[in-house]
């Protein structure tokens, strides 16, 4: 399907893209970045592998991608509600002077955006490439 060079380049680049995605997502409260940007970076790493190596390589991820997304959205809601229960108002900071809310919500958003973007790719473009 794709030439050997493309596969080798894809395999070589993907870990660095994923690593930078994890960094951008998790250090959103310190350095520029955040949940949304990190999630997109992670998704681009996985989509790079999907394009170069076909959907078969990541078929386990492709199958239950929508569960990741639902899990991400629900944990966002649960964090908000626990803030309501603990702190008295919705999305209140559970540990007041620590960036806990920023870290937790960043990771949840990153997971959600990552799963959503990969799902878009799987369900829209996956049909052209061989079945995921």
């Amino acid at each position, binding site marked *: 399907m794709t030439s050997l060079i493309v596969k080798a380049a894809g395999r070589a680049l993907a870990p660095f893209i994923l690593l930078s995605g994890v960094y951008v997502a998790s250090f*959103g*409260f*310190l*350095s*520029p970045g*955040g*949940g949304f940007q990190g999630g997109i970076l992670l998704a681009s790493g996985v989509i790079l592998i999907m394009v170069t190596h076909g959907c078969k390589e990541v078929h386990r991820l492709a199958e239950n991608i*929508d569960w990741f*997304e*639902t899990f*991400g*959205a629900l944990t*966002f*809601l649960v964090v*908000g509600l626990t*803030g309501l229960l603990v702190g008295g108002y*919705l*999305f209140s*900071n559970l540990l*007041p*002077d*620590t*960036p*806990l*809310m*920023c870290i937790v*919500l*960043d990771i949840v*958003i990153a997971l*959600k*955006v990552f799963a*959503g973007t990969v*799902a*878009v790719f*799987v*369900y*829209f473009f*996956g*049909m052209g490439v061989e*079945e995921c």
Partner: protein
Amino acid sequence: MIQLRKEFITLALVLMIAVLLLHGLQMTYEDKEISEVDEYYKEHQEKTGADNLVEAILLDYRAYDTFGEVMVLYIAIAGVIILGKIVTEEGEP
């Protein structure tokens, strides 16, 4: 004749957008007075513990808006998944 008019319309649209963009570039922010909400964000930044004020606002002060954003994204992607599943199972919808 119609061909000519279509180009004029697009040309007019492009010029209008160009004028708006150039006007936007000249806007200066010196005379914009700081509203009390910005003051509150700046003073209480250490309470959120986040150095990146944008993230502090996005995730701590206005997490409810971000929750709406996440839900909008979720619904959009759910629509894509539903369409994708319909197309793959029944061929063309």
